[in-house]
């Protein structure tokens, strides 16, 4: 996955906000990358652009050699449905669905049969130790459990990459450790993970690579295992 001179500008009144400004960065398969930066640095916008949820003002993103800008809206939706998994800070589970239904929902858009949806959703929830929570609605689950359901929802469609936007932002230390451990484990199994976080400590400990953004631009790009992580 490669971005070239990627820009995303917003017009706010007469003022132009350069959320992402001429970002050229590549992401390797099976890598675990943390995108760090202060609030408003453009890291979430970059994530949305990579996930095909947002459209760049200029520049482009190539995934497996295919430019996202060349895809139609339906093709872009199919890209999100089949190749991308997303995890959000606020979980974004559908409140009136059970954990099982929330996970199965991710398979509604990639031609999976209802029976297959149930089987796969159950299996992934069991794998994430949520077998006894399948029939629970989000408000009956703890924050950590909700985020694990959200990760299950991202994983169930067997994506190429998971985009996690502040996945531990709403969790306590213990649950945050669990979630980061889970993401690391998934990465070790070969899944590409690109995680946005403003927590330097998190960025230092788990990801293998850290990309630092500031004012919409990439200002550092280094291994997370370096002494200062490039993020000090």
């Amino acid at each position, binding site marked *: 996955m490669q971005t070239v001179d990627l820009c995303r500008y917003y017009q706010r009144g007469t003022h132009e906000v350069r959320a992402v400004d001429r970002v050229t960065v590549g992401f390797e398969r099976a890598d675990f990358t943390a995108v760090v930066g202060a609030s408003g640095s453009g890291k979430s916008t970059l994530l*949305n652009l990579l*996930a095909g*949820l*947002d459209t760049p003002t200029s520049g482009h993103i190539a995934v497996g050699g295919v430019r996202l800008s060349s895809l139609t*809206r*339906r093709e*872009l*939706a*199919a890209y*999100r*449905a*089949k190749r991308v998994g*997303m995890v*959000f800070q606020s979980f*974004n*589970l*559908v409140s*009136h669905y059970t954990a099982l239904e929330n996970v199965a*929902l*991710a398979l*509604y*858009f*990639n031609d999976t049969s*209802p029976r297959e949806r149930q089987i796969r959703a159950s299996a992934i929830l069991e794998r994430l130790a949520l077998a006894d929570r399948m029939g629970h609605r989000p408000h009956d689950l703890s924050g950590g459990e909700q985020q694990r359901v959200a990760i299950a*929802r991202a994983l169930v*469609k067997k994506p190429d990459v998971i985009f996690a936007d502040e996945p531990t932002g709403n969790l306590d230390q213990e649950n945050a450790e669990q979630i980061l451990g889970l993401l690391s484990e998934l990465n070790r199994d070969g899944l590409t993970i690109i995680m946005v976080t403003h927590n330097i400590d998190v960025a230092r400990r788990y990801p293998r690579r850290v990309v630092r953004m500031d004012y919409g631009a990439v200002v550092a790009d280094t291994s997370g295992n370096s002494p200062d992580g490039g993020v000090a």
Partner: protein
Amino acid sequence: MTFRDCIATSTGNLWRMKLRASLTVSGVVIAIAAFVSMLSFGAGMQKMVADQFEKFGLFSTTLVYPPRGEGEADSVAHAVLDDAAIVALSQIPGVKLAYPLDAFDVTAAIADTTIRTEAQALPTEALGTKLYSDIVAGSTLTTTGTDGALVTEDLLERLGIGDPDSVLGLSLVVSVEQTTIDSGLVYVFRGGIGRMRQLLAGLTLDSLNRPEYVRRKVGQVASDAMARFLNGFLSARAVVSDTLVVRGVLRGQSHGRARIRPIVAPTATALRFNAGGFVGNPTDLFAALQTGMFPSGGDGGTQRSYPRVTLDLETNTPYQPIRDSVEALGFRVFSYAEEFDEIREFFFYFNMVLGVIGLIALITASLGIVNTMVMSIVERTREIGVLKSLGADDRDIRRLFLVESGLIGAVGASAGIVFGWLITRLASVIARSVMESRGVPEMELFALPLWLIGTALVFGIVVSLIAGSYPAARAARVDPVRALRAE
């Protein structure tokens, strides 16, 4: 997202907001119920007319009239609706039976009551047609030459007889006043020689060479002769009476032009009354003078002309070829099938008006759907964002909201049809009791044909889909990035 998933998801969404959805559905229910009950009335009226037409065989009944004679070609204007014409009419392909209207004024006495009324003669074959088959008591007349007669309920009502069965087998004394050309001519020449003397005495011989004088005198004589003729024609009436037996009672429906006269007798029986010449109405005389068709007297009037001939057609005979054939013979045609087409056209517009009123109610209800769906978008913005992040495209979102509004329409329309039907049942019960209290024959004013059920269902769903199209388009346009940030 498959259509099945859409249905399941939308049903779940509507179920979650039960109160709001049920209130919105109620609007559709009321609108569809109004639509159904109003159109049901139109359909009921149309069905009632169609049933009457069918019951009395009017779809296969055509009436033939003599030409008006005004502004028509000579050959056409002189076409006479006589026995020869009846034979010609009966030979038109598709015509099963042709019989004339042979009606006359009579005095009828039954059960010690005497009234002036009308009678009509019918060939036995015509008595077997649907038009004369609505017998409420007794049976129809099957053989010619009997003394049997049918009477109508209307006649019994005038006679003050309530039970039709009570008149079966009773004697019906029918009297007919007859007058003839002969009786008029006798009056012209009454006084004979004395009148001639008077005439001659009044002449001034010297003046006979003056044309003006002669013209005036001839005019006076002709005028006097005509006055005497009419006086004799109208005054010297003979009364012919005969006793018939009431064999059956007809419902006595009036089918517009084909009104059944209060007394119906076979032609052979009726000949006993009108064999001598003109009967009752002096206009018959003038009609005969116009057409040159005088009755020969005594042979049943083989040269008689008739005011109308009824054609009983084979079932499903198209009326246009019949019309063409009859008009080619120089006669005018009235077809009940054509009239029914006009009635059907009337009901089409009638139903259109009722439908538009119902549609207005439905459009009002659809505003409720728009409101509900827009509210739903506002509440579910974040959910829409989630769905898009999971791979839903604009079409999926649009379809999801359209299916929701379509479901509101489908449920509302289904319940509205049932509710509308209940309203018509209630109205029908009330109408029947009112009719009963006023002595009006019972009739079903409402009908719920399949086409109406289908139309109401389609209307309900289509209007709801149209109402849902704006919210659906708005939902589809939701920006997922903003939606995911929404609280």
